[in-house]
């Protein structure tokens, strides 16, 4: 996955993501693609969760999946989740859950719970940073005020790092793939540098929904695992999702 939060010169906040999933889960020789993304695309839907006929939050989701990976609470915050691979991975949390130790929460359930219940950026950030989870993750959170954007690197028990927008010091975007920001990405899977190169070329003055779509359409940020691209802008309430494909030549991940 690739997720980013960016702020333009006028203080507008953009949040976007490519959802990549299905690595090593079956290769379709005929179509030269991974099987799981092929089957996930027709299941991809935008959901408008309403209470009393009013929107509580919106999300891009897969039919049959009740947790959330991408969402917006209109006017309040935007949220995406990227997978974080770790030896202390989710399988340990699942085993603990099966054995009856149930003090952690499933990570996509936490995303949904925050989208459904948190009423401010600060509250969302606090819940995402402090709630005990069953698996490690990256939470990418955007707010509705200048400077409100961060990447929360989570282990199962704690926030290891919170990387925030810092406009005064030139950090006008934060961008996360699937690696801790203080470590180099795997040399075979470096989407971070190409994505940052394109963001830097775009410049803060020209950042918009359109130019962010350009960044997320550039290989290898776009790759064979990319199922959908979601673009969000909090002040206008923009929430757009598009199914993606990566014709050859294209990186398998």
């Amino acid at each position, binding site marked *: 996955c690739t997720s980013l939060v960016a702020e333009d010169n006028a203080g507008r906040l953009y949040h976007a993501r490519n959802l990549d999933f299905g690595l090593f889960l079956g290769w379709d020789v005929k179509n030269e693609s991974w099987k799981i993304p092929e089957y996930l695309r027709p299941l991809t839907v935008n959901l408008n969760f309403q209470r009393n006929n009013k929107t509580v939050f919106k999300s891009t989701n897969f*039919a*049959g999946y009740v947790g959330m990976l991408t969402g917006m609470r209109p006017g309040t915050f935007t949220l995406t989740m990227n997978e974080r*691979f770790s030896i202390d991975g989710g399988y340990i949390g699942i085993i603990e859950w099966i054995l009856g130790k149930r003090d952690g929460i499933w990570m996509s359930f936490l995303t949904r719970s925050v989208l459904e219940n948190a009423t401010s950026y600060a509250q969302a950030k606090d819940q995402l940073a402090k709630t005990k989870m069953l698996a490690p993750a990256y939470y990418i959170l955007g707010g509705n005020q200048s400077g409100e954007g961060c990447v929360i690197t989570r282990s199962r028990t704690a926030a290891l790092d919170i990387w925030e927008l810092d406009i005064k010091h030139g950090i006008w975007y934060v961008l996360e793939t699937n690696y801790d920001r203080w470590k180099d990405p795997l040399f075979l899977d470096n989407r971070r540098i190409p994505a940052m190169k394109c963001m830097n070329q775009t410049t803060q003055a020209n950042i918009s929904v359109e130019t962010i*779509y350009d960044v997320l359409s*550039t290989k290898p940020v776009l790759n064979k695992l990319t199922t959908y691209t979601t673009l969000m802008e909090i002040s206008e309430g923009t929430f757009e999702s598009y199914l993606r494909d990566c014709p050859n030549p294209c990186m398998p991940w």
Partner: protein
Amino acid sequence: QFVPPYTEDCRRGTYPPSGPTFKGIVPWYKINLDLAPRVRWNQLINDKKVELTSLIQVIKNLANDFFPSGKLIEIVDKSLAPLVDTLPSPFNEELKGIADVSGVPLGEVMLFNIFYEVFTV
């Protein structure tokens, strides 16, 4: 670049989406949180029943490639289904509703919903 990682110059002018990297727009559905958890996904699952069943079948086929005896899916069906009751509300009831409408066994619906956790390793 025609060798991996097939890096290219930063794209320009790709929006509005079109061309070979665009596979289509994503449809909208309303989920009414005022409805009981067990029925709030009914319309969506009715519309996507075939696609959901196809995905679960692909996952089962992959599992059977690794464990041809079919034991793994047997374990999923028998062992994961009771775990649904350990999930917090409203997730437990929502998963049961999805299984009811789709006809997919509850354990397999549960497996789909913990996919992300499983694959963090």
